[in-house]
């Protein structure tokens, strides 16, 4: 069974269609990266999954519960970090968490215990008694992670969890999410328009463009599919380019194409063939000045979809 499933989910605001017949499926235990540029409909989809807004048509299910008709069942197993997450500034971190715990029906004793544990996990044990107004953006984001841990959800939905924090904070938050996913086997849905972040921790991605899902699948699968098997691009500079060298490289198995340019050669291949290519060049009598490898990142796939629109 899929933990998240949407059926022709559509949301219209007046004439604008924010989400257009979305059929999304997320399996239990996945770390799902929900990619798309600003305004692609990521947040709207998330709001519909949580019953925070009603779909115009279609339906969304979380763990088999209809998000519009049974929002309470959905919310009791779902942790949500909104894009601009806020806390009660005049309360301490621990008080904020205990409030969430009490809203989830936990007894006071259990609420205090879980709050302390959650703050430990996110690395804020010493900030427990400090007012949230003293927190940096990065600390608030980690507190938001603690806030969902406290209800021990089956699935966590995070809307741009890294927006507005510094690079070091981003790494901390991402590693924290990855660690939690690994330790608790929680399903995680994370939306982002930052590719490398999704790449860093997600195993599955869905790319949303103008309210439609344009690509969805495992990360490697997706890149193979999208780029026709090309995985790596190797750029080399030579003192002199001869036809013999080009022919020799073409014969290495795994090389898909060789492009020649005034400055050097660009080789597309399905695996990392640097040693073989270097050897071939030396064998053919060429002199290599520089060699660079670039793995096809999700970015290229993403940009490809971007351009095709």
């Amino acid at each position, binding site marked *: 069974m899929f933990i998240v499933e949407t059926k022709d989910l559509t949301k219209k605001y007046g004439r604008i269609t924010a989400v257009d017949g979305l059929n999304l499926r997320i399996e239990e235990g996945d770390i799902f990266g929900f990619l798309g540029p600003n305004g692609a409909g990521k947040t709207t989809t998330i*709001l519909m999954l949580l019953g*925070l807004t009603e779909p115009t048509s279609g339906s969304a299910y979380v763990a088999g519960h209809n998000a519009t008709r049974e929002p*309470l069942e959905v919310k009791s197993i779902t*942790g949500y970090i909104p894009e*601009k*997450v*806020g*806390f009660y500034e005049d309360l301490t971190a621990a008080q904020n968490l205990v409030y969430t715990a009490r809203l989830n029906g936990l007894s006071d004793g259990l609420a205090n215990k879980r709050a302390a544990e959650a703050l430990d996990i996110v690395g804020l044990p010493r900030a427990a008694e400090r007012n949230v107004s003293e927190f940096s953006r990065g600390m608030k984001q980690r507190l938001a992670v603690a806030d969902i841990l406290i209800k021990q959800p089956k699935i966590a939905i995070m*809307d741009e969890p890294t927006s507005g924090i510094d690079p070091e904070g981003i790494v901390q938050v991402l590693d924290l999410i990855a660690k939690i996913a690994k330790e608790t086997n929680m399903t995680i849905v994370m939306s982002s328009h930052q590719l490398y972040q999704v790449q860093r921790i997600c195993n599955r991605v869905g790319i949303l463009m103008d309210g439609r899902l344009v690509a969805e699948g495992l990360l490697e699968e997706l890149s193979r599919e999208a780029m026709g098997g090309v995985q790596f691009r190797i750029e080399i500079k030579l003192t002199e380019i001869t036809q013999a060298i080009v022919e020799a490289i073409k014969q290495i198995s795994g090389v898909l194409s060789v492009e020649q340019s005034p400055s050097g050669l660009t080789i597309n291949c399905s695996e990392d063939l640097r040693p073989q290519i270097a050897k071939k060049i030396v064998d053919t009598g060429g002199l290599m000045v520089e060699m660079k490898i670039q793995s096809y990142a999700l970015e290229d796939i993403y940009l490809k979809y971007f351009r095709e629109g």
Partner: protein
Amino acid sequence: MRGLVAIFDKELADYLISWRGIILFAVALLVTVVAIYGPAGALVNIREQLGEPTQFGQTQFVFLNLFTTSGEGSYAFLFFITMFIVPIVGIVLGFDAINREKNSGTLSRLLSQPIYRDTVFNGKFLAGIVTMAIMLTSVVLLVAGLGMRSIGVPPSSEEALRLFLFLALTTLYGSFWLGLSMLFSVLFERVATSAMASIAIWIFFLLYTLTGFIPNAVANMRVPLSDTPATQELIRYATVQIAATRVSPIYLFQEAMYVLLAPGTRTATEYLQIYASGAEWQPGPLPLSQTMITIWPHLVTFVAIAAVFFGVSYYRFTREEIRST
């Protein structure tokens, strides 16, 4: 009602511990003391009354005079409470209830917990009512205590009962203002807008009640008086005028409370009937049951208006999209 207790606890603590709560209490107490112990305060008048001969058993309600009598250069406690204190407290407690949480991004988090949206609204509303009840009770007890020391007359059991009813009904009146300002906090995104809207409505009705300009204009339009008006004409004129004045919730409540706390007074309609009948008698104090019957329509009107506020707030709030931006 899952989560109601949690929300109620948090909001009540917010109201009572925050600067907002402390300032409200301070202002209410200050105004109370000024109203009672003003330079030419009500106490002087009441002491003078004590010496006057009893008429229609008036003296049995001497203690309640503390709340309804005004001194020279000051207003009666009841006037202060209904015109200023209760509306302001109700507005201050509610004007940012929902939109502040929306703006600070806590509402998204709150509503992603397994609770119904109306529970959030109800929890905040209940906390506001309890805060007002605590505040009004302490103010009334303070006035009663100071008054008792000064005039040396304890309240009779009926007076105590009337005071208790006054407290309960004033809390209802306060929840009317609380409901209004909370409605605006649902309707308007910005805290400043909802505050201004609530205050504008209060000032409008304040001036409406104090100046009587609009009721007079309405009456002039409906019943144009001739130069030498007949009694019947005057009565028709006054009837329209009273009805128009009662559009103001402030007047409506004040009238009911004067009847409750000063059992010798009547509603404007009844005074008009006495006048129309040509009788020359002064009305005596009403028993409590009759007082309640007299002010019952006023109270029903209040509950009805509050219900409308609630209905509109619920409708808007439960269907709204909660986006955290």
